[in-house]
């Protein structure tokens, strides 16, 4: 039973990290209808930037802030340079462009930082907690608290501020939102800033938790998060979060208990195809 709880706690942490990466993807899809595969590259950049800033200054707070700023800038550059000019083409043209960005950033990271795994020798200032006999390590606790904080801030921005109202309007119908005086390109830029900054947080958290930062760390999340936003309903942020948490738990529990012959990374796609055949708009999606 204790093992089960430990697995569950790990699964929630896994799901939280998926949620942090998937959020950006769902937000971007909401306002732009683009599958932003390169988001995983932003997450890789976030981990490296955090590592270097931490190495140079020794301050985790600075590492988080600096890496968020760098990622926000990268996200905006990708949007301005690549996606915006390609919006009038069929959706797979920006998708291929996005994959090309992912691959070139991975290669650039390999050339700049070297092909090996770097360690992230930082500890987040959280205590170890005990629930009965089950220990929640400081790393796990940090992931829970930071994810909850990010989700709360995001929820507050999107539902309680005028900016959030404008974001929701632009994602429901960009031309009409524009007619109501909302600068929809500005909203798109802000969405990229928010999504990319969250990816930076996810990158640093993963780097610290697994104590690993390497050039291809974005490859698996890049495609898994695609499956997750589909399961959640394309563009639905709550759906993306629920799908991520469910997948994180399902992966750890199924691998721990059921002896399935398939690798865990295929699970997301099997779940996705199942959900699509049953509810083609995803769990929380609206049929458009």
């Amino acid at each position, binding site marked *: 039973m204790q093992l089960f709880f430990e697995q569950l706690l790990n699964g929630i942490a896994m799901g939280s990290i998926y949620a942090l990466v998937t959020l950006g993807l769902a937000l971007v899809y909401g306002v732009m209808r683009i599958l932003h595969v390169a988001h995983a590259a932003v997450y890789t950049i976030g981990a490296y930037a955090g590592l270097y800033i931490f190495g140079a200054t020794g301050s985790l707070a600075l590492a988080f802030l600096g890496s968020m700023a760098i990622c926000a800038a990268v996200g905006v550059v990708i949007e301005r340079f690549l996606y915006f000019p390609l919006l009038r083409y069929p959706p*797979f043209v920006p998708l291929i462009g996005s994959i090309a960005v992912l691959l*070139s950033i991975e290669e650039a990271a390999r050339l700049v930082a070297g092909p090996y795994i770097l360690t992230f020798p930082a500890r987040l200032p959280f205590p170890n907690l005990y629930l009965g006999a089950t220990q929640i390590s400081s790393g796990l606790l940090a992931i829970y608290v930071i994810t909850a904080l990010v989700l709360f801030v995001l929820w507050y921005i999107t539902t309680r501020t005028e900016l959030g109202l404008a974001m929701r309007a632009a994602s429901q119908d960009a031309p009409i939102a524009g007619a109501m005086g909302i600068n929809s390109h500005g909203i798109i830029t802000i969405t990229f800033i928010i999504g990319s900054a969250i990816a930076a947080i996810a990158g640093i958290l993963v780097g610290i938790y697994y104590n690993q930062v390497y050039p291809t760390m974005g490859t698996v999340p890049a495609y898994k998060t695609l499956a997750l936003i589909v399961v959640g309903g394309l563009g639905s942020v709550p759906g993306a979060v629920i799908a991520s948490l469910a997948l994180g738990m399902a992966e750890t529990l199924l691998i721990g208990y059921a002896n399935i012959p398939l690798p865990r990374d*295929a699970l997301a*796609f099997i779940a996705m*195809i199942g959900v699509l055949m049953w509810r083609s708009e995803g769990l929380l999606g609206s049929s458009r």
Partner: protein
Amino acid sequence: MNAYVTTIVTVIVIQAIAVCGLNVIVGYAGQISLGHAAFFGIGAYAAALLATKAGFSFWLGLPLVICISGLIGLLLGLPSIRVREDFLAITTIGINFIVEAVFRYVPFFGGALGLGGIPRILFFDIRMKGQAFLILAICFLVICMLVSWWLTKSWASLACYAIREDESAASTLGISPVRFKLFAFVVGTAMAGLSGSLYAHYMQFISAGDFSFPVSVGFLSMLVLGGMGTLWGPLIGTIILGILPEVFRPLVDYRVFLYTLLLLLMIRFQPGGLLGEGSVARRALAPLFFRGGKR
């Protein structure tokens, strides 16, 4: 032609056959597929298993391989009826990952070790390799391009074009989107199967990694660069993206980076493909080849 050049040209020709098939699905019927390598792989594994375990010759196995990949294409094309555009793109990515995982983890398919010992093709007691194999592959490519060309003239492709441009409008005219989408999937995946079969017999060894998702991205990039829905686009795109890595080879470490960067720039500035409407190449070549109208 030395062996190095022959090998590269042969691989390009084999890939061009698969890209021709992708062109039927994406270019003609407008159904995005990012899982084409899965069908390429299904063809290759079917051919390899028939040759090594059942002892079939290439020629006896070929119709079977084409039928198998077309049939699986039909099955996996079914999602395209239910989901569209972005959903379909991600579904096909998922299919690619699942098919690759099955090849890699099921012992029947050789598991992580792959399948080896695939015999060479016999043609009247001549073992096809090197340039002889290249000529055979070119013959198959010509057949596929003839089929593509014939498709552009046929009623089926007219129906496909109509579905690509506007599915609801097409269905009000009595064109069944289900029928013609599946038709495109079957033709396209059958070509991928043929290509996979040639690949298996040429390489004599296959493993799951040869049919992974990046290969699908490669196929789609070749198609988009060459020009979707055009007859020569698949061939030109495959030649360009097939030769580039060899051109960059002296740059060793920077090779892949430059390749992806170039792909990015081409997508950004020439998204309609080199032969697509309004492209640089088409404008330059138009006075030579195209008289009058657009086509």
